């Protein structure tokens, strides 16, 4: 917003916007007594109640005033972080507009104490935030040059400063350090720890033309909606303006699906970088040969269903269960009869097991029907149960002998 006279059109846009995006109607607008909010016909047209504070009593407009303070505090600290030298203070002012919009962007993405530490963005849009898009404001970045406009020996990228995001465009707003041009690019490499100064430049360009996208937050600051989207709505409204990230589940490309790229990831959580003593540091896999690695990867990564309800969803396990029933039928394991009176039947359940070849391929899905033998009573249902199992020492001895004899 350049002039106060734009207020009316911005207000109109906002009311329409809230209606279209969230099917919410603005019911009350509270403002101070400034004349730019005095549009009686407009409010009547939409049926909005206009509340004003008393003269010289900003306390009555506290929600907006407090939010204003918050946004400016954040924006100021962003600016201080940049540490711009004095000669560039006119740039600082134009930076400031970006800083304010970025401050709003950040505020909407951090947990708010007023909303019991929920994130405003997630509350409004009911979807998880992707924090990976967040970058440090004003950091050094390199934006790719446009392929059509360059020849073989032109620069492949431009040295830029990151200035935030633009509504409705999937890209980053960056400021070229040399030409002072503000533009949007998708292909940007960030160096978030590095902050550089603008280079000296002849002829200044005015970056004002890009300020139009700031429109909503300026309007929003003076608008308070009540009841419909609660108090947080105001700052959330800006949100829809930011770049919508695809909510598609990210996964490895299809051609990689037959491989295990990270062997230790299959058994442990993915964020090892935050763990002080990641388990991967004590698992030396690189000395193994390929076959052994395959086996280890597959026995670690495949999981078996525990319940019938889980297994019945997949075709492999259904077939496995069919096969097992068929095998039991051909063996004539049982015949189906009525339960004799006064007797209880033994329960049974399905167990699911993956069988692997020595090279780690899944050999087959095995479903096994087991009886719940623990309900049996000795003497009634069975008499002798002893059956020998191998002693571990014997196993070790056999392997030791085999090792020596080979």
């Amino acid at each position, binding site marked *: 917003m350049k002039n106060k006279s734009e207020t009316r059109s911005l207000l109109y846009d906002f009311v329409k916007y809230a209606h279209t995006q969230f099917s919410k109607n603005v019911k009350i607008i509270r403002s101070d007594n400034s004349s730019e909010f005095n549009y009686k016909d407009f409010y009547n047209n939409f049926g909005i109640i206009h509340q004003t504070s008393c003269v010289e009593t900003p306390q009555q407009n506290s929600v907006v005033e407090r939010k204003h303070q918050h946004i400016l505090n954040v924006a100021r600290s962003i600016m201080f972080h940049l540490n711009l030298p004095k000669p560039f203070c006119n740039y600082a002012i134009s930076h400031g507009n970006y800083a304010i919009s970025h401050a709003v962007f950040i505020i909407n993405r951090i947990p708010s104490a007023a909303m019991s530490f929920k994130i405003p963005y997630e509350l409004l849009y009911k979807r998880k935030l992707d924090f990976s898009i967040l970058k440090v404001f004003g950091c050094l970045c390199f934006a790719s040059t446009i392929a059509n406009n360059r020849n073989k020996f032109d620069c492949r990228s431009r040295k830029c400063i990151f200035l935030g995001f633009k509504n409705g465009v999937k890209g980053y707003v960056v400021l070229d350090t040399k030409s002072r041009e503000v533009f949007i690019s998708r292909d940007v490499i960030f160096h978030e720890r590095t902050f550089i100064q603008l280079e000296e430049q002849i002829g200044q360009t005015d970056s004002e033309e890009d300020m139009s996208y700031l429109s909503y937050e300026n309007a929003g600051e003076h608008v308070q909606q009540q009841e419909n989207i609660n108090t947080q709505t105001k700052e959330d409204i800006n949100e829809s303006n930011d770049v919508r990230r695809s909510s598609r589940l990210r996964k490895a490309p299809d051609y990689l699906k037959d491989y295990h790229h990270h062997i230790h990831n299959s058994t442990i959580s993915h964020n090892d970088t935050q763990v002080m003593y990641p*388990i991967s540091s*004590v*698992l030396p896999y690189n000395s193994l040969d390929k076959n052994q690695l395959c086996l280890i990867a597959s026995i670690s990564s495949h999981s078996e269903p525990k319940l019938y309800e889980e297994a019945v969803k997949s075709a492999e396990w259904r077939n496995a269960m069919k096969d097992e029933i068929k095998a039991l039928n051909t063996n004539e394991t049982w015949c189906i*009869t009525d339960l004799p009176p006064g007797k209880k039947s033994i329960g049974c359940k399905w167990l699911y097991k993956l069988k692997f070849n020595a090279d780690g391929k899944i050999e087959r899905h095995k479903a096994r029907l087991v009886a719940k033998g623990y309900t049996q009573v000795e003497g009634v249902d069975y008499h002798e149960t002893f059956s020998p199992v191998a*002693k571990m020492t014997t196993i070790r001895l056999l392997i030791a002998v085999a090792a020596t004899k080979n």
Partner: protein
Amino acid sequence: MDLPQGLHTEKPNQVCRLKKSLYGLKQASRQWYSKLANCLYDVGFTQSSSDYSLFTRKTTSGFMALLVYVDDIILAGDNAKHISEVKVFLNRKFKIKDLGRLSFFLGLEVTRSKRGIHINQRKYALDILADSGMLAAKPCSTPITKDIKFNSDENEPIHEEGTYRRAIGRLLYLTNTRPDINFAVQFLSQFVQSPNMYHHQAVNRVLRYIKGSPTRGLFFPSESNMKLNAFSDSDWASCNFTRRSTTGFCVYMGSALISWKTKKQNIVSRSSSEAEYRALASIACELQWIKTLLQELQIETSDSAKLFCDNQAARHIAQNPVFHERTKHIKIDCHVVKERLQNGLFHLLPIK
């Protein structure tokens, strides 16, 4: 038996009348075993008397051993043709699945190279860690510390006995390839009845130790001889409550560790020599068993095993038929050492 899930009949409330045994029944394992054993007898296998799950067959053209763990079978032999014959036979009878060279058996992961065979329980160790939530724990270099307060009277017993017992049970199976945690697990398993906080912390320490080396296991070198070396030791009156001593021994074949044990003795010993002598008695029994097992595997062990013991008095008691004031209460069952020594089962040697 109830109808299995997913199987439907026309009439409700019907059940399956079992004509044959099924997995999970109490008698299932016995039924299976007797069937398998009978089949193996038919093709000329004999059951070993030292381990009933070991079946051997010796013919003029070769020797074969077959080890059964319920329905997992290891086959070993010196004649590849015979091995495949037996596989075909078993396949005809039971529809077995040949998994090729031994690589994964009862949770043991077997890796081979030219230098030998390595077995470990990596997956099992990681599972224990994952289930106990210790995957990200800080590893420590020893499984147990010497100065733990284990006075069970002072501390309130914890209420999660189940977790403690489960952890001990799983660790016990892990000792199959991990003699290094054997003592710690043996020690902690004495408290499964009413564990307190200190015991719990000690178990966590063992888990953290495992975290530091989940792939550690046993290595069986291929360049090794078949001679048995055994080491015996004992402490004296280490148990604070009962003043009993702890036996420890390990048996090597060549340079491969095959058997070990840590056990609290069941009688109080009046002297350290007596405790060592008891340890000798238990290792003598173990050696006797391993020797018969080796004979059944057709391995010639003509020369006696070497048994090393660091206690001179215990060696003297075993070697010389003296009857002494301080040894007269030692039970007769311990003098198995004397008898085996005279039979030439082992030589008793000092540790230098």
